[in-house]
């Protein structure tokens, strides 16, 4: 395949496969589902997955360094509670409270950064610890039962209204996405992340500020988790400790589905975006399947239960296909020479 044109420049093999997956999902759900490709439902697909999109975007640099951040979902819970307390208990206006919440997220990310970059602890262990720590803190702050609601209309609009026909929070995802794309693919900092992912020692000996750059990736992840928490609270109209539960795994799934190597070093932000879209469509589409009967069982009554199963299959199939294509291509090259 000749590499030419703008798209080919951006798209790796894996991303082409994801395009196929998304196209197949669209056709399948349009055929089987009810009101699937309507403007209202397309809005819903992105509105309901904006938070996961944000986490996936910001997880990409972390995974590029060969790290992982399991704590972002829990940090969302903590940030949601902090936001609720700031607005409802201290009476701070939502905008300032949102800023402080993002700062709280960055501080949470800072804890990860200090342990991973400063103390050289393995990211999996560190963020597994903070995964429990942040959620536990959120539950302790609310005694598990308190929640905060009754936010102003203006604030709820962030999560529930449209801007130029597109859900307001999706604009935020677009802006964050472009920023992350620029950071990862157009700066020396971004290149250093991949260098760290290929080999930390090597990067260190090449004179790269490994500690600083690693720290930035984790702090960024924390800050964006705070932002995602604010958006989730605005969408639901309620802040409580279980916000974002399980989101970290969905975000990681999107990143890996997008072809970013879990061992670090290679991957594209475009892949992450496609992986996220593929997941978002799958989850929404399954809920829209009309009543068909298979073996006397109505599909729609089991469709939601299939979402976990199909997400897993999708991930494994997409990755297996990529590897198969790579192997085939390598063989072809070997034959020619």
């Amino acid at each position, binding site marked *: 395949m000749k590499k030419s044109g703008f798209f080919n420049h951006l798209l790796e093999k894996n991303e082409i496969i994801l*395009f196929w997956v998304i196209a197949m999902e669209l056709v399948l759900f349009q055929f089987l589902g009810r009101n699937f490709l309507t403007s209202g*439902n397309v809005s819903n697909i992105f509105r309901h997955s904006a938070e996961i999109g944000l986490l996936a975007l910001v997880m990409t640099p972390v995974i590029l360094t060969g790290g992982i951040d399991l704590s972002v979902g829990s940090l969302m819970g903590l940030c949601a509670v902090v936001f609720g307390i700031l607005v409802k208990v201290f009476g701070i206006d939502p905008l300032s409270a949102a800023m402080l919440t993002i700062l709280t997220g960055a501080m949470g990310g800072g804890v990860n950064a200090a342990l991973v970059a400063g103390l050289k602890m393995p990211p999996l262990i560190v963020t597994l610890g903070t995964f429990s720590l942040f959620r536990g803190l959120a539950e302790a702050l609310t005694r598990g039962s308190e929640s905060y609601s009754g936010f102003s209309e203006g604030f709820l609009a962030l999560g529930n209204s449209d801007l130029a026909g597109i859900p307001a929070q999706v604009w935020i995802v677009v802006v964050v996405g472009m920023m992350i794309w620029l950071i990862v693919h157009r700066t020396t900092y971004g290149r250093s992340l991949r260098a760290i992912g290929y080999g930390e020692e090597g990067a260190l000996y090449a004179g790269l500020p490994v500690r600083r750059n690693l720290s930035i990736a984790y702090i960024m992840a924390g800050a964006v988790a705070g932002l995602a928490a604010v958006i989730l609270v605005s969408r*639901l109209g309620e802040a409580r400790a279980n916000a974002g539960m399980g989101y970290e795994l969905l975000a990681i799934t999107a990143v890996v589905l997008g072809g970013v190597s879990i061992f670090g070093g290679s991957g594209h932000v475009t892949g992450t975006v496609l992986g996220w879209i593929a997941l978002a469509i799958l989850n929404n589409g399954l809920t829209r399947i009309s009543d068909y009967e298979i073996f006397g069982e109505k599909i729609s009554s089991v469709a939601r239960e299939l979402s976990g199963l199909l997400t897993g299959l999708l991930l494994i199939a997409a990755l297996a296909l990529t590897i198969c294509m790579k192997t085939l291509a390598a063989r072809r090259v070997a034959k020619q020479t």
Partner: protein
Amino acid sequence: MKRFTLSIALVLFALVSCKKTEESGKLTVGFLLKSKGNQYFVTCEKGAQAAAKELDIDLRVDGPIQADPAKQNEIVENWITDGVDVMVVACENKDSISTALRKAKQAGIKVVTYDADAQPDARMYFANQATAQGIGEKLIDSAAELTGAEGEFAIITGTLTSANLNEWIDAIKARQLEKYPNMKFVGIRPCDDQKDKAQQEATNLLSANPDLKAIVAVCSPGVPGAAEAVKQAGKKGAVKVVGLGLPSENRAYVKEGVTQAVILWSPEDLGYLAVHAGVALAKDELVEKDAKTFTAGKLGELQVVGDSIILGKPIAFDKDNIDDYDF
């Protein structure tokens, strides 16, 4: 490149071939459960299906697999874009679901809640199984009767944030302080609407409070869970188990004498009533904030208090009558 172009073409094809909404001409009613895994809501659904058949409507049943307020909001929003006519909703969380239900109301959809209410301005009527006070008092009265109105008791609930369960718990505590001063409340544990978790929490309660005399479970998976824990701890009869639950899930324990009393209204009737109310709203037979009574098919005339349609008084099931009920 060819393959890429082809995939783009496919996407475009999908986009232009937008299918038209299926119009059956029937009223479409969305029936939302708190969670699909809970037998209580499965039984509510049965009643809803019966009402749907009677009223010749298109009923769509959905709910999160496990109790999850965020998922409930998503289902409601999807129904809004689908343009359902009526939504009948059991709310996991009062405040978050209200955000979505208000949107539904603005879109001209008739909204009825059942089992657990939303904020009053977010719905038109609430199909109320029984008043919180009625339920709470019935529970603590049975516990008091069984324990001679003295000794320690603990509560197992669904989740600590569940609004209707909390109202019942408040009623239990208020009644106990007022009428049974010799009873002592020692703790409350959430079971996340799961039997295993309830069993585990009840076991913890039993070992932490060796003098415990009664466990009161206010969510339906909590009753068999607590009973299993009491049975395995060898405290059958010494620790009384009472709670809100389905006769079918508790029959074995009641007959064995582990569980002494199960209290419930008919969830099937509740689902039936809620769908009837929603359809009546859509047909303008029931008007928001106006009714004094409401006639719901086979249930006959029911009382309306404010904007709650009251199903009736709870029933107590014990060894002698539990076989008369098949839900």
